[in-house]
């Protein structure tokens, strides 16, 4: 089989597909749409995992929360004393945080109160604020862009009025706004100092929400977490490694769930392709017969059918993947936004960066192209073995 001959068969296959352009175009459009959906899911999951890897790498090494009757409750500050003597703990920072439901806007805010000067990189926090902002002092709060937008606050001199549990108002001056580039972390956040958050949530003195533990040697995190769990049996100890694992599992579940839905679409498409390829009309049968009469071999007809399948599937694959990449990288996977955010009133501007690897492309390719080729191979064989006289007569 010479290269020139194969090129000629490819030319003939392309001309044939162009003659049946309505049918071919329909298959390419449907196939591209199926690939677009499958690839979009894969790219989105990949990009979300990249976000976790990049943005959550500086998370606390260990978080300690007190548990009671299966629920989390405030942890006494004197638990910090019980941790003394555990070799390797560098610092323990208490923190108050919780959720605030705004009945007017139906939005949920995440309120965080801590002494950020004690936190790692606390001194650099002003670099993550928009121009004109400053770190919050007593009676002040720093807010995310989502909070600012949903409350329609002015750029300067804004006040924030929040209700305490007894419905008395707590007024806070807005000292600034987090940069939009940190939206994926801070869009629903209201940051204030520890006494203000204690006052807002009416948390008794001596209690906080959780403790952030920082460890000198990252390799000792698991050992230290084990020791903490032994000393404080009524607590939940969340080491840094668990954060990554949780997200991998969470997105894996989402990806897997979506893949099952997509497999149905792919299966439906393969049945459609089989039906289209096997249901040869009289013109196509006559074409095969004429080709055989003028000297084409069965192998040549098979090559022709292979090229037709390859052209349709490769073009659809490229189109689908290109559109999927643009959808995820430039439109923030807008089609999946309802799945990702649900009924959330505050929705972050998600900048997804799908840093793809060859394996990701190969996975999508193997999920869609070989099944299509396999579905069309038997009809191709059937068409290739038609006796020329039977078709012409």
């Amino acid at each position, binding site marked *: 089989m010479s290269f020139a001959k194969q*090129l000629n068969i490819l030319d003939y296959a392309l001309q044939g597909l162009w003659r049946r352009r309505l049918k071919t175009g329909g298959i390419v459009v449907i196939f591209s749409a199926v690939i677009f959906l499958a690839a979009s899911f894969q790219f989105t999951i990949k990009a979300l995992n990249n976000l976790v890897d990049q943005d959550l790498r500086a*998370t606390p090494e260990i978080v300690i929360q007190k548990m009671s009757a299966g629920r989390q409750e405030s942890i006494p500050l004197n638990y910090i004393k019980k941790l003394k003597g555990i070799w390797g703990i560098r610092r323990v920072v208490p923190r108050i945080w919780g959720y605030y439901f705004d009945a007017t806007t139906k939005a*949920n805010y995440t309120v965080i109160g801590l002494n950020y000067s004690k936190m790692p990189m606390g001194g650099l926090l002003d670099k993550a604020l928009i121009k004109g902002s400053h770190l919050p002092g007593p009676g002040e709060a720093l807010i995310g862009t989502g909070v600012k937008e949903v409350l329609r606050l002015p750029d300067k001199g804004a006040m924030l009025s929040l209700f305490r549990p007894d419905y008395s108002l707590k007024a806070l001056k807005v000292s600034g706004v987090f940069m939009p580039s940190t939206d994926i972390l801070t869009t629903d956040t209201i*940051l204030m100092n520890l006494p203000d958050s204690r006052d807002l949530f009416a948390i008794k003195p001596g209690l906080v929400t959780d403790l952030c533990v920082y460890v000198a040697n990252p390799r000792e995190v698991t050992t230290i977490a084990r020791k903490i769990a*032994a000393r404080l049996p009524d607590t939940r100890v969340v080491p840094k490694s668990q954060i990554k694992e949780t997200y991998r599992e969470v997105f894996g579940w989402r990806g897997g769930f979506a893949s099952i839905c997509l497999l149905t679409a792919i299966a439906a498409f393969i049945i459609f392709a089989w039906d289209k390829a096997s249901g040869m009309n009289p013109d196509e049968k006559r074409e095969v017969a004429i080709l055989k009469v003028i000297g084409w071999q069965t192998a040549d007809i098979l090559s022709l059918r292979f090229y037709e399948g390859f052209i349709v599937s*490769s073009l659809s694959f490229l189109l689908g993947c290109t559109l999927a990449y643009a959808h995820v990288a430039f439109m923030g996977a807008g089609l999946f936004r309802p799945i990702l955010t649900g009924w959330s009133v505050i929705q972050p501007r998600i900048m997804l960066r799908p840093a793809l690897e060859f394996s990701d492309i190969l996975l999508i390719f193997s999920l869609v192209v070989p099944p299509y080729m396999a579905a069309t191979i038997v009809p191709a064989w059937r068409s290739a073995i038609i006796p020329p006289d039977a078709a012409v007569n």
Partner: protein
Amino acid sequence: MRPARLFFYIVGMLLVVDLVMYAWNVHNERLAADGSRAAIVTAALGLTDLCLATEARYTRHPVLADGVVPFMDYPGEIEHFPTGSFWAPPVRFGRFPSPRQL
């Protein structure tokens, strides 16, 4: 022009578009990593979760949520938030609560 050549041109053009998009994205990724503002915020506030869904506390902070949270508001409550349908069940919570389970 013979059809095969036209086909290769189209495929080549799509590949070039893909490469340009990928290069642009990698460039942006480097800029984002260089800024490291996200790292500052994460470290300074001790954040553990991405702010993807703000509708329910167990999907806002899946890492720190209790396993029973979706059902804890009243006895017999069913989980009803849309994002919760796609959220992994927090099976590993409980791995670190007591020394016996370590």
